[in-house]
């Protein structure tokens, strides 16, 4: 009961804290929409092939584009409050429906990349901390430097050359076998096969980041007094590493993983265009090519909202994980 109350309090504080940020993001989105060349009426006219001055004016008044900027901002905000992100004449669908269709693929890709990079990064970081200053540490340090500097989209293409073109083990792109009606385990396996290369390319840079972070925080946690106590009690090195050091070293990593959500989303945009995955990134790419700014800015808005939600969730997770944060507030 008490924990629910503290979590509720933390949620309330976090939401209150995000409010100015949220308003700012909405304002920037509206501003960008105003700056975009051509308005919705121009796009509609362009799609239909011909338009007269009168029909353009009619369209503008229908969309409220002939009103003053503050009025338009008001309309924009009230539309958003009704979950209305506008209409894409290009796809003949509402922007929120388009984004809803594509969100799943992007989130799957990001989740897999996150899991992969956390598992491998933490494992490598532990190895580096274990052999601090000796050759495994140095070799892995150089590797992390390489991973950190490689462009994700390029390594994706190189993986395609090796694993799809030369070896023929994995598909070059897409999100599932076309026409195969799979359920249960085969469906999951199929998805994993298609996601293996994109998720690895996206994860690469984060493996480097988490490995270094884990190394640093393992070394820091390992130097604490309670670790010396545990050693003095005669606990096995394994028990000390996993129960006493790793648990405390993981806390800063959960914070960072939350902060990386936005960056990973950006990475997913490029990776999806490489592997032609039908996700948000691919949609953004198509929107850029078609100059469909409604869709593009809708994606920017939704992805910003996703980052805000993740930040709040990470805050809650930390409150739950670390009793010290709970009592400090």
């Amino acid at each position, binding site marked *: 009961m008490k924990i629910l109350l503290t979590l509720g309090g933390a949620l309330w504080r976090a939401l209150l804290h995000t409010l*100015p*940020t949220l308003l*700012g*993001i909405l304002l*920037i989105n509206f501003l*960008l929409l105003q*700056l*975009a*060349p051509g308005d919705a009426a121009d796009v509609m006219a362009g799609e239909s092939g011909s338009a007269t001055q009168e029909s353009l004016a009619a369209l503008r008044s229908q969309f409220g584009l002939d009103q003053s900027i503050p009025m338009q901002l008001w309309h924009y905000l009230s539309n958003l409050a009704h979950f209305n992100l506008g209409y894409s004449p290009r796809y003949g669908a509402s922007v929120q429906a388009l984004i809803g269709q594509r969100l799943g693929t992007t989130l799957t890709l990001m989740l897999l990349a996150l899991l992969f990079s956390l598992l491998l990064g933490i494992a490598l970081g532990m190895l*580096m901390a274990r052999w601090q200053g000796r050759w495994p*540490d140095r070799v892995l*340090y150089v590797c992390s*430097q*390489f991973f*950190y*500097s*490689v*462009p*994700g*989209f*390029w390594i994706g*293409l*190189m993986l*395609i*050359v090796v694993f799809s*073109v030369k070896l023929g083990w994995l598909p070059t792109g897409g999100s599932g076998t076309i026409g195969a009606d799979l359920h249960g385990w085969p469906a999951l396996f199929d998805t994993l096969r298609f996601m293996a290369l994109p998720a690895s390319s996206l994860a690469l840079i984060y493996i480097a980041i988490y490995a*270094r972070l884990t*190394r*640093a925080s393992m*070394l*820091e946690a390992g130097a604490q007094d309670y670790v010396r106590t545990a050693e003095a009690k005669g606990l096995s090195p394994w028990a000390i590493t996993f129960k006493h050091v790793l648990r405390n070293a993981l806390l800063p990593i959960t914070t960072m993983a939350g902060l990386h959500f*936005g*960056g990973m*989303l*950006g*990475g997913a*945009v*490029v990776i999806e*265009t*490489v592997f032609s995955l039908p996700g948000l990134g691919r949609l*953004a*790419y198509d929107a*850029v*090519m078609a*100059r469909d*700014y409604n869709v*593009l*800015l809708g*994606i*920017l808005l939704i*992805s*910003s909202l996703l*980052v*805000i939600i993740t*930040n709040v969730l990470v805050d809650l997770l930390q409150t739950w994980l670390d009793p010290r944060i709970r009592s400090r507030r």
Partner: protein
Amino acid sequence: MNARRSPALRRLLRNPTALAGLIFLIAITLLAVFAPLLYPGDPLGMEADALLWPGQDWHYPLGTDALGRDVMAGVVHGGRVSLQVGILASLFGVLLGLAIGAVAGYFGGKVDYGLQRLIEIFQTMPSFVLLVALVAIVQPSVPTLIFAIGIISWPTVARLVRAEVRSIREREYILAARSVGYSHLRIIAHEVLPNILPTLIVTASIMVASAVLMESALSFMGLGDPNQVSWGSMIGSGREQIRTAWYLTAIPGLAIFLTVLAFNLIGDGLTDAFNPTRDRASK
């Protein structure tokens, strides 16, 4: 000042990885600067037979692409765009972040609160998605790429500068400068700035690395300057032939990788050089 910095420079030059990065960077910069002399003419112009493999014809050491364009000329000319965008965008980002961070940290109060919210807004929006939106709206060209990458990269610098300025704002020598009646601008420029310069230099070199990466990703997606060849756009057009001529994708990517690596190695070396006692991977 100089006497304090030169041991740092000496330490940097004694660091083998940082030195390797520096040498590579100097070489690639020279190639980029002298590209018009080495490879006069348009690198987008058709020169020879299409799809020559590297080494097949020593007149074209890195081969030619599907339209018979010299890959070596493309790499050398592409370096101009990548380095130019990377360096100028970071410079713009550093200056913007420096100004905003210094004002927020120095004045504090309501100004600080407002600017912190602004920083938070920019750190919340996924920066690459914002970058794509910005470039798509203002239309891609080298100046707009520099502008857009600068716009999304200033918050890191601003946060850093703000924190540093706040920590030294109440030190005695700043209070002394204030009591003498120096202007705010003079105090920031002469007393505060030299103290945060080392941190700023390290951040800048890592920012150039990420700016080069972002430029390459944008031009790979077709959002680069359409009239200039860049490493990213070479990968973008080379991927059409990835099954048969994978070297068209591999070579420019290698150029990006090595350049970014060089900037990161120098950044690491600078961190060590400025903090000789610190454990190098504990940042």
